[in-house]
């Protein structure tokens, strides 16, 4: 499935999208872990991150389906990049 980065995350990872492999029924939280594996710099932002699929916010325990695109929204504010 696909993960999409916005704003600070797009700049921090240098990319807009990432494909991650998740077992069927894997959660948003599991996808986040797979993203941080590839981009450890994001790990500090976990408490502030919002998740969305389609046009809706989703919770960390939301199960992902094949074809979902998980959007990672960065925290509100913070230091200079």
């Amino acid at each position: 499935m696909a993960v999409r980065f916005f704003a600070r995350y797009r700049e921090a990872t240098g990319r807009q999208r990432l494909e991650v492999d998740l077992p069927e029924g894997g959660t948003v939280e599991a996808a986040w872990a797979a993203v941080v594996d590839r981009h450890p710099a994001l790990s500090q932002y976990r408490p502030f991150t919002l998740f969305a699929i389609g046009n809706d916010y989703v919770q960390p325990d939301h199960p992902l389906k094949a074809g979902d695109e998980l959007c990672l929204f960065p925290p509100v504010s913070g230091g200079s990049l």
Partner: protein
Amino acid sequence: MPDLYRIVEEPLSADAVAEAVAAAAAGGIVIFSGVVRNEKDGRPVKYLEYEAHAPMAEAKMLEIGEQVRRRWPSVKAVTMLHRVGRLEIGESSVLIAVSAAHRQEAFEACHYAIDTLKRTVPVWKKEHFEDGEIWVGLQGG
């Protein structure tokens, strides 16, 4: 007069949104315009860049418009526009216009719409200073 909820790249016009909501039966229009400030916590700002998740942002603005119509029945029309891309000091980043039969409802509805937009609509801004940049988004506006 259809309601309108859009992420746009062009400069925003208060006249255009006023016209969009000027349903013939409306008595009053309240418009909110968010303007790029020349400083942030005392630091001079050079310019801003706005980025949105456009389809979701438009869907969330539509949701806000639907909430407004349920809560304030005298509202005649709602328009919400957010600009993205590079904006200079003094330019408008967001315009919300609400027309209603009663001005009290137009004020309340417009105020509710901008407060809710700031909490829920996925738009981020990057403030450019002489000596660095900061990303701000959602609740931070």
